[in-house]
């Protein structure tokens, strides 16, 4: 009885189970029966049982106990048992299982079997799940089969060889000569496999690539035969002669012609012929044309051909079939980097595709549009992109938002436009923007000081309208806190001013504080903004005081801490409040994104309060630590540093994790600890030229020596050079000197660093030769240094 009958019975039973639980029960019973039967000795129904097990495996139930049975069945002499055994091996075994090694011998025997179907079973299984060891063992067999067997077996052997090359790239050389010979085959199946094998070999190994470049004329010949041949019933699909083979050959030609002029020249005619003769009304023709276009763009083709290719893509874009449009956009994406202008011509169509209903097409159109944004078309593109953002599917929103931000940053025509765009994105897709948008935006706003008034008006309006978008609310709170006074002044050149009273502003901030929709970070922003307003507004300071003291007992630890600190600021340190809550200075762009410890000192040194309009930067060390905390809007919980207990700025800095940008004021205090100047010993002094030597940093075997030269005489010295020699076994490396001119009267000096590596710890001696030109004459002198000073550190 064929194995399928009993299998069908079981399938029928499983299907008749009405609930999931019933099905599980049936399957468990069947599995138990199968397991029992496996344990029995030789049993005529083994293949049925394994077939049933495979069905159960497909449904998702565990079937690993069938692995040994697969091994046994593969070794059986009967064909149908072998067949099921190999199928089971492909489904249940893989390289991680130990049982897979056991079938290696069976595969080896079957590869030499007389029946080609048994051989094909073995080849198929090896190609599907062959591990690296199995591949190494069986590679010579495969090579033999590649050369002398029927085309049926050759075809399978080539694909098996591809799998082997993927698993064990070194064996590629074994297959190269056979692959070359296979190009002469007539059978399309074998040819197809051979092309795949050659493609794989060329991709892995550049020497093989160079070798196969010689095969380009042969490939061109085959391709030409396919294109010009008439109707062939076996291979024609929709009027195109074997499109699968054509596509493969085109792909191989692409790899061979890349960056190589001679190969590309040989292909030009052929590609032009294919491009013009192929009928693209059906999918098959379109596939071939698409591959041709990709090949043309990738090799060094002549310009006429490139123009033809881009035109074909443009035609594809206008096609009604969505598949074709998707494909053409994918290929345009690949060439937009190199042929930007050619793709720009189709910008209109691409932007229209943004409005297509199909989500895949939309995604492609979005990526392509973002790649096409340039300084010229930024305004129109941004309009389209913002429109897209409001209607796009949710999975594309964050990608679109970040793409818009990048484009806006690179090509913003004006700062006001930039701020407008970002605000627009925040209002439409606020929930999907990335975390660093908020600090970036804050930095941008601070830096455009002339637009503060405008910005704060817009943000206030947005805040009043909607407090659900967290990033927008955070930025709005921060701005109101900083620039609330310009809001109150009620005048603004850029936009219509809003008539607000102090109460209105405080109402808005309180709403944010109390709303359920606000995240803890947002409430932190709002609280700090309220506090800052206490210096900007005049009348309702008591209200602020009361708000702040309420939050002194808030459950959220962060808010509570802030409120307590602000309270203390009101009570005990009222005299410092104004200084502490001063406006922020312009932030230095370069120090954004660095962690506190290192950049605090470095970033600040470049920082100068440039704009005279900005109030001075706080310098006093004490309030600085609180300034750190106040400005740590984005950070996690701070160490409790009450005002008055001046901790070194370093400790408060290390507490904050994310508040990089806004910690710059705190960093002002960080007096950079200069390395202590090591003791310098004068080793040479003659006619005014003085050479000092100092050692630093002795690690076990290497030392750094700095030689400093000064000129105390009345004449300038030029072309000052030092040469040094050290005993054997010591390695010397002289770095470039700081200069070669020594002006008179020691006004400047020349330093040169020397690295000594002393692995054998011999006593260090050095001979230094100086040479310089003074008053027109060259002077040379040598000095021996026998003892080195101990390093200063």
């Amino acid at each position, binding site marked *: *009885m*064929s*194995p*399928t009958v009993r*299998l*069908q019975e079981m399938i*029928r039973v499983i*299907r008749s189970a009405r609930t999931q639980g019933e099905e599980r029960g049936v399957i468990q019973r069947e599995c138990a029966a199968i397991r029992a039967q496996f344990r029995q000795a030789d049993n*005529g129904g083994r293949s049925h049982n394994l*077939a049933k097990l*495979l*069905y159960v495996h*497909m*449904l*998702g139930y565990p079937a690993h106990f069938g692995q040994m049975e697969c091994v046994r069945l593969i070794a059986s002499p*009967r*064909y*149908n048992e072998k*067949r099921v055994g190999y*199928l089971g091996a492909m489904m249940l075994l*893989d*390289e991680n299982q130990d049982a897979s090694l056991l079938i290696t011998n069976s595969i080896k025997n079957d590869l030499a079997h007389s029946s080609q*179907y048994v051989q094909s079973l073995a*080849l*198929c299984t090896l*190609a*599907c*799940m062959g591990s690296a060891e199995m591949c190494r063992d069986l590679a010579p067999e495969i090579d033999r089969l590649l050369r002398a067997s029927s085309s*049926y077996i050759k*075809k*399978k052997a080539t*694909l*098996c060889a*591809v*799998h082997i090359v993927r698993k064990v790239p070194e064996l590629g050389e074994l297959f190269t000569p056979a692959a070359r010979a296979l190009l002469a085959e007539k059978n*399309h*199946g074998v040819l*197809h*496999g051979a092309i*795949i094998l050659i493609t794989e070999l060329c991709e892995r190994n550049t020497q093989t690539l160079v070798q196969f470049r010689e095969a380009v004329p042969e490939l061109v010949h085959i391709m030409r035969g396919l294109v010009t041949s008439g109707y062939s019933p*076996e*291979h024609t*699909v929709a009027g195109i002669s*074997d*499109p*699968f083979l054509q*596509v493969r050959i085109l*792909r191989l030609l692409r790899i061979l012609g890349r960056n190589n002029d001679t190969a590309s020249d040989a292909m030009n005619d052929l590609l032009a012929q294919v491009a013009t003769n192929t009928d693209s009304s059906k*999918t*098959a023709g379109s*596939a071939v044309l*698409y591959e041709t276009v990709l090949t043309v763009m990738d090799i060094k083709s002549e310009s006429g051909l490139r123009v033809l290719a881009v035109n074909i893509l443009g035609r594809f874009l206008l096609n009604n*079939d*969505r*598949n074709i*449009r*998707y494909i053409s956009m994918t290929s345009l994406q690949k060439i937009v980097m190199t042929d930007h202008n050619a793709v720009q011509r189709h910008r209109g169509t691409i932007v229209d595709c943004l409005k297509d*209903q*199909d989500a*895949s097409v939309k995604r492609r159109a979005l990526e392509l549009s973002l790649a096409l944004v340039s300084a010229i078309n930024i305004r129109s593109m941004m309009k389209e992109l913002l429109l897209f953002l409001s209607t796009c599917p949710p999975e594309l929103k964050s990608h679109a938002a970040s793409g818009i931000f990048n484009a806006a940053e690179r090509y913003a025509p004006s700062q006001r436009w930039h701020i407008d765009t970002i605000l627009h994105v925040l209002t439409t897709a606020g929930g999907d923007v990335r975390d660093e948008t908020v600090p970036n935006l804050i930095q941008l706003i601070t830096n455009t000081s002339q637009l503060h008034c405008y910005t704060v008006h817009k943000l206030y309006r947005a805040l009043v309208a909607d407090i659900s978008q967290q990033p927008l609310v955070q930025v709005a709170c921060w701005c109101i806190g900083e620039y609330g006074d310009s809001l109150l002044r009620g005048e603004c050149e850029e936009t219509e001013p809003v008539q607000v009273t102090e109460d209105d502003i405080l109402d808005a901030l309180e709403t944010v504080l109390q709303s359920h929709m606000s995240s803890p970070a947002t409430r932190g922003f709002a609280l700090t903004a309220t506090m800052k307003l206490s210096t900007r507004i005049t009348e309702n300071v008591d209200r602020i005081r009361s708000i702040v003291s309420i939050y002194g007992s808030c459950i959220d630890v962060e808010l509570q801490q802030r409120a307590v600190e602000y309270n203390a600021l009101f009570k005990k340190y009222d005299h410092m409040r104004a200084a502490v809550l001063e406006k922020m200075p312009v932030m230095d762009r370069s120090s954004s994104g660095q962690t506190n410890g290192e950049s605090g000192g470095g970033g600040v040194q470049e920082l100068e309060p440039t704009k005279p309009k900005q109030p001075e930067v706080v310098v006093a060390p004490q309030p600085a630590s609180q300034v750190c905390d106040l400005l740590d809007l984005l950070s996690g919980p701070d160490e409790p540093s009450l005002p008055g207990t001046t901790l070194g700025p370093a400790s408060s800095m290390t507490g904050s994790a994310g508040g990089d940008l806004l910690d710059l004021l705190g960093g002002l205090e960080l007096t950079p600890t200069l390395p202590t100047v090591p003791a310098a010993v004068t080793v040479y002094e003659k006619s005014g030229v003085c050479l000092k030597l100092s050692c630093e940093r002795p690690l076990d075997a290497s030392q750094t020596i700095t030689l400093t030269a000064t000129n105390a005489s009345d004449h300038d010295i030029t072309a000052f050079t030092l040469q040094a020699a050290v005993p054997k076994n010591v390695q010397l490396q002289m770095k470039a000197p700081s200069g070669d001119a020594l002006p008179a009267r020691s006004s400047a000096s020349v330093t040169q660093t020397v690295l000594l590596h002393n692995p054998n710890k011999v006593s260090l001696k050095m001979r230094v030769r100086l040479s310089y030109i003074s008053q027109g004459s060259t002077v040379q002198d040598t000095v021996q240094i026998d003892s080195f000073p101990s390093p200063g550190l």
Partner: protein
Amino acid sequence: MIKAILIFNNHGKPRLSKFYEHYSEDTEQQIIRETFHLVSKRDENVCNFLEGGMLIGGSENKLIYRHYATLYFVFCVDSSESELGILDLIQVFVETLDKCFENVCELDLIFHVDKVHNILAEMVMGGMVLETNMNEIIMQVDAQNKMEKSEAGIAGAPARAVSAVKNMNLPEMPRNINIGDISIKVPNLPSFK
């Protein structure tokens, strides 16, 4: 390279699942569920290409699918395959199944999973396209089935008898059989299909 070939019905029940890369059994089932989820959301007149789900490699891999009546045929491929080519390959696969099963329907796939696997093994091997010529594939599959039947021995007798009678060409039988002195007149039976 083709990473996986999945066939499932409109409710997500797998009818065939072949993976050409190793995943654990749980992951395989999750991939099937995830793919069904992604593919079933698609409208009828959108394009046949999708980005792959997270489990099967994310955006490097594409799902190319075709919906026939109650079945989804999904091929998960990476960027080295031509998308339109795979679309055509799905068509060839379905036409081959149609030829082998005579007007294939979902029940055929359900009850003859092993046969479908054998046909697929003639078309795609190790994740790479082996043969695209329908006639060639069918010829090989028929030869292998014949080999299996010839081995079935005595147990296969009923099946063999049925197929022998089916292939019998009654109009060609002799009207009179004369062996020695026995003469049998064969009645004129209607053709047996």
